[in-house]
């Protein structure tokens, strides 16, 4: 059978999923956690605790500050020692809360039992969204878009299908893979809950063919849950992009500048679905997530269940320590992750993995002249012309950038990946994209 995938562009980055067979290990609670106030796209949450406050696990410490924002809860119990800058991978300290851990006392209303609760009918769609909002759930694939915003389908639109993103197309990362294998039942109930919230009868779980065990297990389970179908997909990056997942599964193209819901799709990450299950059925806010710590030089590539705010350094130590020849530490996957300046930054809601690259893989080649081979054009999944856009951006020709649809760029990195001359195409395009988006926004005002 030919597996479905999206049509235009895409690349096949090699890169082994080293930690695919490692069961999720629970990280011990650290001594101190650093919880940033901005762990989602949108406005940072307003911090509502003060220095000296005692907090419990699951207690709200920062309140959503608008529609596109999310609540943040304490992931540990202890004393707030500081409200101020916390470490960040970029090196620019961000606002957040530092909590010194004392014991492990949870909020009373959280159900910590392991029993599976499949009684979806207890809740109305409104209640589900309210609970998701309260729990501060964001897209856990890395984009960290507040989940309740996605699940609130505007009145004039209708969700035809819910797509669950189990693609994990980034090389090396295995967090979603392990979640799908080890929390399959919870995932299914979570999917059911989201289906109810967005009022649709159909759900597709898209999984790339390099995870046959997950495909098999979920297909088996999906027989018990009406409306849920597992769709195996061909290997291709960036299939985890919302637009490309919709194209691959529903064969619909989200028009430029439009949202998935405009073609009747709601897309959610597999990890997010499990978080939804926990939030709705167990009243447990988003206070921990699965993080892959991996890399060719890492001694024991692993998947950890870590509390939000745990310094990444501890995770790396648990995976065998930072190798001597480390040249780069990446928060996220190799294609879209961000290189970090330090290892003190905390696990946030969107930290899907930590990739450690040895010195010999950490460097970019010196850029050579563009030979106009067109490989970037072939690779671009949005059908753009990166060779042209990067020059326009570098020369600050914003009008031309706009004429060539720079705002469609999803920053997936396929162009740089495929460029034989090692040109920094995306570096400039990102600049051009944000400038052009700014110009477009200011024009609308």
């Amino acid at each position, binding site marked *: 059978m030919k597996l479905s995938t999206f049509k235009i562009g895409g690349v096949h980055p090699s890169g082994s999923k080293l930690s695919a067979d490692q069961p999720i290990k629970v990280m011990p609670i650290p001594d101190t956690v650093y919880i940033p106030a901005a762990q989602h796209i949108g406005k940072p949450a307003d911090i509502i605790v003060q220095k000296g406050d005692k907090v419990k696990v699951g207690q709200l410490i920062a309140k959503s500050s608008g529609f596109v924002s999310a609540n943040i809860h304490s992931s540990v119990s202890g004393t707030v020692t500081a409200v101020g800058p916390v470490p960040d991978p970029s090196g620019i300290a961000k606002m957040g809360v530092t909590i010194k851990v004392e014991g492990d006392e949870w909020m009373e209303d959280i159900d910590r039992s392991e029993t599976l609760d499949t009684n979806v009918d207890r809740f109305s769609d409104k209640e589900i969204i309210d609970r998701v909002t309260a729990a501060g759930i964001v897209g856990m694939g890395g984009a960290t878009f507040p989940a309740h915003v996605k699940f609130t389908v505007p009145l004039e639109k209708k969700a035809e299908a819910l797509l669950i993103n189990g693609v994990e197309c980034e090389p090396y990362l295995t967090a979603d893979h392990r979640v799908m294998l080890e929390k399959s039942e919870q995932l299914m109930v979570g999917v059911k809950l989201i289906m109810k919230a967005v009022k649709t009868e159909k759900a597709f779980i898209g999984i790339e063919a390099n995870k046959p065990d997950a495909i098999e297990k979920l297909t088996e389970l999906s027989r018990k849950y009406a409306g849920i179908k597992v769709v195996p997909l061909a290997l291709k990056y960036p299939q985890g992009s919302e637009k490309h997942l919709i194209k691959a599964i529903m064969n619909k193209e989200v028009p430029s500048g*439009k949202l998935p819901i405009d073609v009747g799709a709601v897309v959610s990450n597999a990890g997010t679905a499990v978080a939804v299950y926990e939030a709705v059925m167990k009243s447990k806010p988003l206070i921990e997530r699965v993080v892959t710590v991996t890399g060719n030089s890492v001694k024991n590539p692993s998947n950890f269940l870590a509390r939000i705010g745990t310094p990444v350094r501890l995770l790396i130590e648990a995976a065998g320590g930072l190798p001597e020849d480390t040249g780069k530490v990446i928060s996220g996957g190799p294609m879209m992750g961000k290189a970090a300046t330090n290892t003190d930054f905390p696990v946030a809601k969107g930290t899907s993995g930590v990739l450690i690259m040895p010195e010999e893989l950490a460097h970019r080649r010196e850029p050579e*002249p563009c030979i106009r081979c067109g490989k970037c054009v*072939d690779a671009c999944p949005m059908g753009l012309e990166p060779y042209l856009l990067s020059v326009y951006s570098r020369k600050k020709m914003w009008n031309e950038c706009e004429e060539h649809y720079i705002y469609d760029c999803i920053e997936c990195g396929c162009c740089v990946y495929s460029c034989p001359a090692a040109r920094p195409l995306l570096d400039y395009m990102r600049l051009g994209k944000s400038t052009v988006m700014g110009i477009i926004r200011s024009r609308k005002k």
Partner: protein
Amino acid sequence: MSNLLTISPSPHFKDKPTTKSLMFGVLTALIPTFLVSLYSFGIGALVTTLVSVGSCVLFEWLITKYLLKQQPHIADGSAILTGVLLAFNLPSNISPFIVMFGALIAIGIAKMCFGGLGCNLFNPALVARVFLLISFPVQMTSWPKPIESRLNYLDAVTGATPMAAIKAGDLSICENANFIDMMIGKAGGSLGEVAAIALILGGIYMIARKIITWHIPVSIILTVFAFAGLLWLIDPSQYVNPLYHILGGGLLLGAIFMATDYVTSPMSATGKIIFGIGIGLLTIIIRLWGNYPEGMSFAILLMNAVVPLINKKFQPARFGAPKTK
């Protein structure tokens, strides 16, 4: 940790091919053709190729180092490739001085004047070939007979090429055309254009290794086949079998190796097909109604000139483009 962490914007992963590996990939694909040319033309093929490659590399090095005062980067293989392609476009009994002159034109004028690798508008090897063809018409059109003149270089026995035969109106050759000879390098012609089978082999290799895409060669060959075939069907007494057009002359060399030159071909798939169709049509038009027996180089150069327009007009298919009504 002993060293500073490296920070760069994403992606942090890179596909293997480099400019150098792509250039050497093309060179690898040219090996079978070179072997056949050695078999057919012997010592002449060897001397011409060596002189051409050597002088291309030398001129590139001299120009970058002393005229442009930059760090020469001849290691990327592009000058070598230009040298090989230039040699493959010449008759094997040509004087080495003419070859060197051609190399100077290719590198000095067609490539470096425009800004070096990646900036040239026209295919350097073809510019040189056309320049030589106009400057030295006699030397450029006296083709040694393959096999027979293997051990002779400058004093080789010359004979007609299939294309020249058509131009002369001698269709009898075609009637008893031996396609097998044309496949394996027993028909006359330039160094690199005599062995269709070796060229096709090289093309398949390049497509398999993703060095080139199929669009340009296939569209050229199909266009030539369709156009020449149509004429043949109309009047077989005046026009030859289309296969003859495809296998004869520089068509395959041009379609597979020259037209697909990265720098001077369009970017998008649609653009490449338009480019190929244009080359195919122009080639046949020049071959049949033009002054020269061979039209491939002119056709490619003419289409090179419109590549910027093609790039502008035929942008790649865009994801989620609004439907035009």
